[in-house]
């Protein structure tokens, strides 16, 4: 008699085994779920969740996984993972907690299969053949959902930062100030330069005070951008005064060997505006010291 089974027979027996596994997991639902929760608690993966949440979440996850195994379709898992990622990321749940929890569940399921089929190695390996791809697929779905969620948040924040970007303000006729706050990258530097050049044209500016007090660090790339901004402004007929160079930035710039000889630098924003005033021919005169106090109005 031929030992080989036909294809149909194999797939049929596979389906039968799949059903058997599903039934097994359904039957042992409570036992396995409790085991899982215990193991996760022992690993400290459930920190920050209430008892009620643990109950409902673990049931949902358990059932979702079993459904995936039964139907060999993953839409449910996908939807659940996305939902969980949104909530998890918002609540500050770590990826370690999520992935760790699923890995634990995988072990619990696996262990129960070992127990059930330990007498029959052939059947065990057939069962694992069915079970393992499903488990791996679910894990990768969840991990991807989390990574995607993180990336989404990073993108949103980047956009928010970009929108906050840098204002170009006119303080006097023909005098603009450009207070730069935060880290400058190539994209932002480019945006900043374009914005400034447009403002120079529309305000007919002659002097620009660029204040970099709020810039934490400068590397050679950023320094280069600053130099470019200064040069481009000069081509538009405006002089740039750089103010607020911190001791750290001064040291970095000199160490990097950036050629700043063509840059006008003044200590702080006040000094910069004063220098710009002189350049434009303004003179600030204090008229009367009594003007410093605001007259009180009688009620």
């Amino acid at each position, binding site marked *: 008699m031929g030992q080989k089974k036909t294809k149909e027979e194999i797939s049929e027996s596979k389906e039968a085994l799949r059903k058997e596994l599903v039934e097994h997991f359904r039957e042992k639902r409570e036992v396995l779920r409790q085991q899982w929760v215990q193991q996760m608690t022992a690993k400290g993966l459930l920190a920050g969740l209430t008892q009620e949440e643990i109950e409902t979440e673990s049931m949902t996850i358990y059932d979702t996984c079993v459904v995936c195994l039964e139907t060999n379709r993953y839409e449910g898992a996908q939807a659940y993972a996305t939902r969980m990622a949104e909530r998890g990321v918002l609540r500050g749940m770590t990826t370690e907690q999520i992935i760790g929890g699923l890995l634990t569940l995988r072990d619990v399921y696996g262990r129960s299969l070992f127990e059930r089929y330990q007498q029959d190695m052939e059947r065990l390996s057939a069962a694992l053949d069915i079970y393992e791809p499903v488990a791996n697929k679910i894990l990768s779905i969840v991990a991807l959902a989390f990574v995607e969620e993180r990336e989404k948040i990073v993108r949103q924040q980047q956009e928010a930062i970009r929108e906050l970007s840098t204002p170009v303000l006119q303080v006097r006729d023909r005098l603009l100030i450009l207070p730069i706050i935060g880290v400058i990258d190539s994209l932002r530097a480019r945006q900043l330069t374009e914005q400034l*050049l*447009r403002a120079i044209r529309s305000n007919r500016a*002659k002097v620009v005070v660029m204040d970099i007090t709020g810039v934490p660090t400068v590397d050679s790339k950023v320094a280069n951008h600053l130099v470019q901004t200064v040069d*481009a402004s000069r*081509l*538009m007929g405006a002089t740039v005064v750089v103010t607020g160079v911190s001791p750290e930035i001064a040291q970095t710039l000199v160490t990097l060997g950036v050629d700043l000889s063509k840059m006008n630098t003044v200590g702080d924003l006040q000094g910069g505006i004063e220098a710009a005033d002189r350049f434009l021919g303004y003179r600030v005169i204090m008229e009367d010291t009594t003007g410093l106090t605001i007259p009180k109005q009688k009620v």
Partner: protein
Amino acid sequence: MLVPILKQSNYLIASIQSELSDDDLLRLRENLVRQVSKFRSTGVIIDVTALDVMDSFATRTLRSIAHMVRLRGAETVIVGIQPEVAFAMVQLGLRLEDIATALDLEEGLAFLDRKTKGDGRRGG
């Protein structure tokens, strides 16, 4: 295309109206340098407002015009460089370091007035 050179009291104004070929630029240079002494001008303004592109040849030619005009005893100022052009130029490393620039024609005239005031000759 020939670039018209206008005489405005002591200054010469060359207003570039369209993209120029290399030959046109060289011709502009020749005409300007020739006319500076003919009219005893003290300043030259080159208006590039209409240009959306400034390549390295144009930049080099403008710089050489400024240097030559200086040798003929006058100042040169380039006016009307557009924001996009300015940005593109610095990215290409074309900085026109030693050449005076101004926002527009009005600014350029004011610059030359300041520059030449001490010469005893009134301009503008």
